[in-house]
């Protein structure tokens, strides 16, 4: 018998095994080529109908979920910009209490909360951290389009170094206003929450089906889980929508967005950029947001990416530089 604590999903090995049924469907008003919306579609498809979802304010609320035309076929609720973690805790606690008291049938109901890079990666960090310390089966998905996209593309703590946004325009005195290096949220979650059993990064299109399988794993391991997804945004990153998938793939293959899973403390690379990486220029030069960068800037970014893969104690995951000194 499957206890409420367990979930059993088939892994999706080929496109033929992808469920046909949609739980995030038409009705949203996101831009063409919006990879954040694709993340929503895949997470819903992978999780299936016995799921409740909350989403924090951002494009995936404002552009995504309009009254009378909601794309959500599974139950969905808005949560405040910094409240993804709290919303997951609240729903999980509510469902568990009702099941313990016999007021709801015992079954495993998936609890998923999503947030953007600003809502989750900056404002909502403490709430997500709190959720990942809990003993509920919940999943937080941070969809990262590298800006506060909904409010017109402002830089966040997760925006790539050097990118142009409405808060970081290139000017005659300063070419680069975004001088912060991208915050390493998944690594931070993995390192900071020793009992969290599953942390992963993913990209909805590359490798194909990977995100869906990671969502299923996250929902099966038992306990809280966190997935950080890389979501190219044609409007904010300034490229033609037809290239969204390609930009995602270039981001992964250049190693600028590391793809991995941490399962019970073990790191597994989904794309091992230690072994093969394409130059980061191939990714940067396809996007208008980097058009103002000069060679020197690109070299700097390349050097930071190389360091991440060659010098970090846990490449792509944890930025300590070994070996450890004696006490």
């Amino acid at each position, binding site marked *: 018998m499957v206890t409420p604590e367990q979930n059993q999903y088939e892994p999706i090995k080929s496109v033929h095994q992808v469920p046909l049924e949609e739980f995030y469907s038409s009705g949203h008003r996101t831009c063409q080529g919006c990879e954040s919306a694709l993340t929503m579609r895949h997470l819903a498809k992978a999780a299936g109908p016995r799921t409740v979802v909350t989403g924090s304010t951002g494009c995936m609320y404002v552009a995504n979920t309009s009254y009378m035309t909601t794309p959500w076929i599974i139950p969905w609720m808005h949560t405040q910009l910094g409240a993804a973690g*709290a919303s997951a805790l*609240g729903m999980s606690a509510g469902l568990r209490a009702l099941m313990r*008291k016999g007021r709801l049938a015992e079954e495993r109901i998936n609890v998923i909360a999503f947030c953007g890079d600003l809502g989750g990666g900056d404002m909502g960090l403490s709430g997500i951290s709190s959720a990942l310390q809990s003993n509920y089966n919940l999943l937080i998905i941070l969809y990262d389009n590298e800006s506060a996209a909904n409010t017109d593309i402002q830089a966040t703590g997760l925006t790539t170094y050097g990118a142009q946004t409405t808060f970081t325009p290139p000017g005659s005195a300063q070419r680069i206003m975004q001088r912060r290096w991208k915050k390493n949220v998944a690594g931070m979650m993995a390192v900071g929450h020793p009992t969290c059993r599953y942390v992963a990064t993913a990209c909805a299109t590359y490798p194909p089906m990977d995100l869906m399988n990671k969502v299923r794993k996250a929902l099966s391991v038992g306990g809280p889980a966190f997935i950080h997804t890389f979501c190219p945004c044609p409007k904010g990153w300034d490229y033609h929508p037809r290239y969204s998938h390609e930009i995602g793939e270039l981001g992964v293959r250049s190693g600028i967005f590391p793809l991995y899973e941490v399962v019970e403390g073990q790191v597994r690379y989904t794309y091992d950029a230690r072994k093969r990486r394409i130059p980061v220029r191939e990714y940067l030069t396809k996007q208008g947001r980097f058009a103002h960068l000069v060679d020197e800037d690109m070299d700097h970014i390349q050097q930071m990416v190389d360091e991440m893969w060659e010098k970090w104690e846990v490449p792509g995951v944890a930025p300590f530089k070994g070996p450890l000194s004696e006490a």
Partner: protein
Amino acid sequence: MTHTLTATGNAYVSEELLTGCQAVAQGVRLADVDVIAAYPIRPYTEVMDLISKIIADGRLTAEYIIADSEHGQFEIVKHASSVGARAFAGSSGTGWLYGFEALAVTATDRLPVLFLVGNRALDDPGAFGVEHNDALAVRDLGWLLCWVTTPQEALEHVLIGYRVAEDRRVQMPMALAMDGAFLTHSQHIVRIPSVEAARKFLPPYDLGDRRLHPDNPISIAPQVNEDWVMEIRRQNWEAARRAPQVIAEAYREFDAIFGTDYASSPFFTEFMTEDAEVVLVGLGTVAAPARTAVRRLREKGERVGYVGLRWFRPFPTVPLRECLRRFQAVGVIDRDFAHGSPDDGGILLHEIRSCLYPAAERPAVVNFIIGLGGRDISIADCQRMFDLTRQAVGAAGGDGLVRWIGVRE
């Protein structure tokens, strides 16, 4: 309030010496709350200390979550409520305001959670003592807001609060306010209701077709913009207008089960007002020195009385107008401030002046700002407020006068 045991006799099972916070914790146990989210701030925290012990001792089955912040705390209970769980949280002072965004949407989402607000000053400079601006900050957002004055009332209003908040006609969150220190931490003998009587009064929480569950796959709070937000605000408004009737009903049933007497004056209590010429009106524990002052002045033959407002939202406009118009002068006690407001008075002053405005003959209304940051309000202070209120009768420019009492000028 005096209580008498009726034929139902065993509606109360024991007596215990409890503080206001401890009484609320007992109320939470008796309401069989499902989810509690805690975060520490004085003075409300004691309620969470005791609830955790009640759960640890197996006297309540509930999920107890230690939140990362008040914002997290309030969002946790909001979302727990949306899946059909009865939920409890609370805060004080700056903590209450830290979670303010969540408080606003809990009301617009019409989720009937219950919060304890242990009133506290809003800091800088630091002050732990009572001031009412914290709880009053939600007064226009679609909250039920009520002040209790004894631990007994506090316990009982957890049950009454959930009952009103969860009623299909209302479905609004409930803030149960009590004065920091003077009630949160002052001990009284409290009669504890039996579990059976509490269950009889408070049915299980049922959010019906608004519950978020895979078998009821709705979308809650989608983006509506100007297309729909007015209609939704209008529904909130209508719910608030239905609340007084539901409160009155709840009190009648409570009285029938527990032998209390709330229903005869549900929204405010009157003390020695029958033949009074001059009354003071206030919220919370100022009732104690004010009533003693009334007794002492009456010994000297002065016709004075006290009106203690219990429900601030919904505001009991018509009954309070009918009550207050009988007097020659009304002194409004504000343990809060409203800088730059009409008359430069307190918040309660404005509510009462506005409530009295349609009356053809109005008493003179004066205002006292007193007891901020937990400064003691003495019996002598209350006697002085009565004197000053009486002086406003017939005096030119007396009406609307605002005075700060007990302040170093």
